[in-house]
């Protein structure tokens, strides 16, 4: 029997690293539907899961793929699916079911350019707002953006850990370049990887209430078949999990769904800062755009500009507090992203007029030329 964690140094794509991260995190059920540029995640899972006692199934569409991982998650197993824009759109309704029923699972979106079929084999970051608001109704979830194959490995583990801890679907918002590029990926020893599992209920089964929150606002989650006779519904429900069609029940449920995320932001939000101590022009970026952004920062520094980079690893929930604080002391934010300004607007909202948020829009298909970002830094410094 092979070890589940392939400790060592590898030269692999982001998609494969994502799959390896999932297996290292303990994912043992994967349901998906082929779609470029995420197919390789499924291909690798199909090959790897039989080695480690897991189950792979290629479902009939992405709606079925996400439905299958939600179902499987209730048996106590860690589950994942992977897709790209069009499939992500199809998953939106059941993403809401996952949020509402507090079902841990990980959804990888290797983004391509849209709208519609767009540029299937080329990169984009146009699904960032869909990740936040794509399913109907108000809700909170977690989205993470990897910038490299190495990130794909670690961030998929992070996604599983947050998903299990907070009982919420977690999105890994990669993109075609991160997914398809091959780079060195170091996989550590299994015992060096921290894994989190969902809280399990204790105490008498007949007194168990499915959504009675624990200390951090998250309710313990039993597995199906353990005799808890749970009822799980996408209808507005009370703490027993029973449907309750009242304004009060809706308010209570929403407070719980929102609270468990909003009250734990320090634990959920991961960011990185580069040359930020004295920076007055701050690039805010995520995913592949971080890497072009870093080149632009280095170039700008050579020219004497005080540029720095604030990297969003967790994009949702958005690090509002940090942007707010930075807005008081910096001259401007520069936001390069492979869309026409989705996260730029979020930065602008949090800066609250104290510093401008200048976009470096790109319609997708390829990454920014660092010179374009540098040009914007120069303009912002004026």
């Amino acid at each position: 029997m092979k070890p589940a964690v392939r400790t060592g140094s590898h030269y692999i794509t982001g998609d494969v690293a994502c799959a390896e991260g999932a297996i290292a995190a303990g994912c043992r059920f994967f349901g998906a539907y082929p779609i470029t540029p995420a197919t390789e995640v499924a291909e690798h899972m199909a090959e790897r899961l039989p080695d480690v006692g897991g189950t792979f199934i290629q479902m009939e569409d992405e709606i079925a793929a996400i439905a299958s991982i939600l179902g499987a998650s209730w048996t106590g197993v860690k589950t994942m699916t992977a897709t790209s824009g069009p499939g992500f759109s199809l998953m939106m309704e059941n993403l809401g079911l996952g949020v509402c029923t507090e079902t841990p699972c990980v959804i990888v979106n290797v983004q391509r350019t849209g709208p519609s079929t767009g540029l299937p084999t080329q990169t984009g970051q146009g699904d960032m707002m869909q990740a936040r608001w794509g399913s109907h109704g108000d809700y909170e979830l977690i989205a993470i953006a990897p910038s490299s194959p190495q990130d794909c490995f670690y961030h998929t583990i992070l996604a599983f850990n947050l998903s299990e801890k907070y009982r919420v679907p977690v999105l890994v918002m990669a993109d075609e370049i991160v997914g398809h590029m091959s780079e060195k990926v170091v996989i550590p020893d299994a015992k060096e990887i921290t894994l989190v599992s969902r809280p399990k209920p204790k105490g008498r089964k007949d007194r168990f209430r499915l959504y009675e929150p624990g200390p951090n606002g998250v309710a313990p989650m039993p597995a199906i078949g353990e005799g808890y006779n749970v009822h799980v519904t996408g209808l507005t429900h009370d703490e027993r999990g029973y449907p309750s069609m009242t304004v009060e029940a809706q308010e209570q449920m929403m407070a719980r769904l929102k609270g468990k995320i909003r009250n734990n932001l320090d634990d959920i939000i991961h960011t990185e800062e580069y040359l930020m101590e004295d920076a007055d022009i701050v690039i805010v970026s995520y995913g592949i755009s971080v890497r072009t952004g870093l080149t632009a920062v280095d170039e700008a520094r050579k020219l004497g500009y005080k540029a720095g980079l604030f990297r969003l690893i967790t994009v949702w929930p958005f690090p509002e507090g940090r942007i707010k604080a930075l807005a008081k002391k910096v001259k401007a934010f520069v936001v390069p992203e492979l869309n026409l300004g989705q996260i730029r607007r979020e930065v602008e909202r949090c800066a609250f007029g104290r510093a401008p948020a200048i976009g470096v829009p790109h319609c997708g298909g390829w990454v920014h030329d660092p010179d374009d970002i540098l040009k914007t830094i120069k303009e912002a410094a004026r």
Partner: protein
Amino acid sequence: MKPEERVEERNPIEDFLRMDRIPHIWCPGCGIGTVVTSFAEAMKKSELDLDKVAVVSGIGCTGRVAGYVKFDSFHTTHGRAIPFATGLKLANPELKVVVFSGDGDIAGIGGNHFIHAARRNMDILVICVNNFNYAMTGGQVAATTPLTANLSTAPFGNFEYPFNLAYLADACGATYVARWTSLHIRRVTKSIQEALAKRGFSFIEVITPCVTLYARRNRLGDGLNLLKYYYDKSEMKHGADTRTVDIDFQGKIIVGKFVDKDKPTFLECMNTHLQKTLGDKYVPYGVKP
């Protein structure tokens, strides 16, 4: 009579229901409750470990079944009960997974999942309560509505050909296919019992009156009338060729057990195949490396 002399009044299927959620929302005369009773009776007679039974519903009148039965139960999204159930079954093969939903949910919006689960011979039982219309939303035309029947989105009568669900399930590979009306209480119970004892994709269709919408709009009388009418119009033909069991508006309804065969399930196929091709390398599900 003194209170202590009274015989305790207890519903015989109480153990299988979430009594704290009763009364249910179904209309008087609706057949869904009867099918739930048959299901509970079948469960009682089965030798299954009831903790290992999961019931999955989609959306609609029948979609509410999951909320009333005392098993691990899921009320999912419209049409997606079958893929959700697929995940449950594959991730915990010990479970007996039953999908309990309506015709709109299973054959309309969820039709794609239905045919693929049958094709894979996924080891689940699908109980489809067919009332010929979308009832929860107020009586719209469905993929099962017989020709000429009148519904709110077919105000001049239906002119679309309906599905013959038994034929569809059979053609896609289901290993057990039966159809009854909701007045065939013992037959439905027996069919559920048989299907629960089987491995593979089982499909039981139960024709049920929708009194409030379908019956009223088509002037078919009250619940009892229609219940009896369907029963009287049914003709039992076990093993009937499913191609011949179409349902016409107020015509005869062929009922019976149409298909009962055995073939390896998805999981059996997967395990056999991977063991054959991978040998010792293959770690069956649930074994920790």
